[in-house]
């Protein structure tokens, strides 16, 4: 079956960059504007920048909350990027306490960087926790981060990558068909594009 990548357009700032990055790698990339379209593709990508609550509000407004849950349950590969990964959590604590999609158990909390400057902005080295399709073929991968909050998982087994910034920060999560990355692969040149290629091959 031909791979069709669906990039969900829910008003997130990095939609264009994510779309462009996949366009440069995959033969077929579609814009997902409506819930019905979620099942018309083989792979789902949820970009995201900005705050947790504004992402959840937009997803709710577009009727994507339940439909996205269902689409993910079908087992098609899913990749959440930055806030698109954070909304997988049960709850987010940015500017208050807000419900997430509840797909992976955990909470989005402010990074405790032990006094280092926040936001965590720039290129940082990611350490894959175990063999994982996202980092397949990469040696000492390095990606671009820009965030002040991170996903604190209730289950260590879903954490697939971490990095050091005063403390250990969760960089990526993987559970069966569900993947999430805190960093921006669409902005991470060689390693970023390599990761997206790996995701396409899932």
């Amino acid at each position, binding site marked *: 079956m031909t791979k069709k990548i669906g990039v969900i357009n829910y008003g997130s700032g990095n939609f264009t*960059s994510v779309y462009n990055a996949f366009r*440069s790698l995959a033969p077929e990339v579609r814009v997902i504007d409506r819930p019905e379209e979620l099942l018309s593709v083989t792979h789902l990508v949820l970009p995201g920048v900005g705050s947790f609550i504004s992402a959840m509000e937009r997803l709710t407004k577009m009727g994507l909350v339940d439909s996205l849950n269902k689409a993910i349950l079908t087992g098609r590969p899913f990749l959440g990027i930055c806030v698109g990964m954070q909304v997988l959590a049960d709850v987010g604590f940015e500017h208050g306490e807000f419900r997430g999609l509840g797909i992976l158990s955990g909470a989005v909390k402010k990074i405790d960087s032990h006094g280092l400057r926040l*936001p965590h902005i720039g290129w940082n080295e990611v350490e894959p926790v175990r063999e994982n399709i996202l980092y397949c073929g990469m040696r000492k991968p390095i990606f671009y981060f*820009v965030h002040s909050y991170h996903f604190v998982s209730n289950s260590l087994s879903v954490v697939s990558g971490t990095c050091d910034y005063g403390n250990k920060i969760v960089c990526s999560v993987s559970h069966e068909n569900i993947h999430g990355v805190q960093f*921006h692969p669409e*902005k991470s040149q060689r390693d970023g594009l390599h990761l997206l290629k790996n995701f396409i091959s899932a």
Partner: protein
Amino acid sequence: MLKKRLIVCLLLRNGVIVQSKGFKKYQNLGNPTAIVQRLSDWCCDELIYLDISTEPAYDLRRDDLKGPNRRSINDIISDVAAHCFMPLAFGGGVRTLDDILLRIRAGADKVVVNTSALESPGFITQAAREFGSQCVVVSIDALKTGNAVWEVYKNGGRVPTGRAPAEWAREAEDRGAGEVFLNSIDRDGMGTGYDLELLRAVCSAVNVPVISCGGVGDWEHLKQGLDAGASAVAAANIFHFTENSVYNAKKHLFEGGVDVREPVFFAHNASVEMGENV
């Protein structure tokens, strides 16, 4: 650990890249999109475009620029973003939340605000609330007026504000700025290095990352900026004239023991067609 960043700053004036000296003299250098691919391939960490135009619309009729005529800053951002797999910030003329939204939708990751933030500091808070602090970079242009005294200027370095850079940086941070982009007006284009005293004063005043700009003439100046506390070092003029200059700058820093990304040439031929907006 988080690497120190090397940022290339490109000045856009009426649709073309220019070189500047003291915020006054400008020399045309070419098409804004041609340079992007090269910079990305040569390990540039980030790009900042600052639009210092005097007209809101551009009409590139020059055949030698090898690009279709472009009408607006958003067209330029879209073209640049299509070939740019690294972080992109746009500044210049950003006055309203709509200005920010248009640039983000066109492909910018961050916006740089200057005069509008000084005139209405609440704008920083609104922008941070709407788009996230990490998207809002406050740019501060400072002129040295005395011994360890500087003044913040607005409107492209033309109008004094009576404010001190460290104090304004602190307020900008309190209001939600994610980063500070610090420019020395008197060092701009001089090639004598950053104003390190100014840089140290601002770095110690805030807890957000500070990007230093203005004055680089030698790769060692970049190292000095990082040693003085900058999280990222930026330069404009110096990167235009030397072949593979970004790579060489990174190599100098890397071999000098500075924690930057290892310089590696990476060519990615994007197959995204120009002008295809989604």
